[in-house]
């Protein structure tokens, strides 16, 4: 799961990263910092796994007021 600050939401972490990268000489534009959550699931069915992950994001992993999320499922 990828959780990131919604567009338009002030992201002081992203700003700090942008400043540091520019100081190092990388001419970067806007930087945004989010969070990655890697999870192993026993659930064999990718569709059901995706639905379950969505509920996890809604309930705990993201705060919908300020964060959006993306889910990707990789069967092993």
């Amino acid at each position: 799961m990828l959780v990131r600050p919604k567009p338009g939401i002030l992201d002081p972490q992203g700003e700090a990263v942008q400043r540091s990268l520019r100081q190092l000489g990388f001419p970067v534009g806007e930087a945004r910092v989010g969070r990655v959550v890697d999870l192993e699931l026993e659930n064999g069915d990718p569709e059901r796994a995706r639905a379950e992950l969505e509920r996890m994001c809604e309930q705990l992993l993201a705060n919908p007021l300020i964060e959006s999320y993306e889910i990707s499922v990789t069967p092993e």
Partner: protein
Amino acid sequence: MSDSPKIAVVVFPGSNDDRDAALALEQLGADPVLVWHAERELPPVAAVVLPGGFSHGDYLRCGAIARFAPVMAAVRRFADEGGLVLGICNGFQVLCEAGLLPGVLRPNASLSFVCRDVPLRVERTDTPFTTRAERARRLTIPVKHGEGCYFADEELLAELEASGQVVLRYESNPNGSLADIAGLVNEAGNVFGLMPHPEHAVDPLLGSSDGRLVLGSLVDAATAA
């Protein structure tokens, strides 16, 4: 219960201002009861305080994990029935994550931890948490937090302002909070959250005793409850 109202102070793993809150309430004439987060029921109390600290290490987002503590279901029922609930700092963050107060607290705009006395303006003295502040509309109370930047979207902020839910504002904003918001109540007016720590300002020896006005108001309201 009229003489010495019982007030629950919830203790989460990582709370660190629970004892200061209890001590301050006791000095103000209340009978504080520490309640562990794993409890499913609250003892019979006239008010509940969620104290400051770093519940569950503040992992993920501050307050995000504590809101699922068993005791929080009881706190929600208590609040729904009109019970008085005060959240200080981490307690404020927990109340926001739990949806008992609107909005969210984010990392300070400066990304630095702030720890200092801040001047506050009291916008309302008709809440159960601010009646004693009538004579002193300006308070000096310390903040100490890394994630106290209040955020609400435009629509929500307009609602909060229209309904007069902003109770405390910073006179000098330490964290980038929207509209200088330092503390706010829910629509019903029985749940209050603030980032400054009134329990650390209850004795002139500590630099200010303005915190007594906030906690004393709560004790008054709990006595009447």
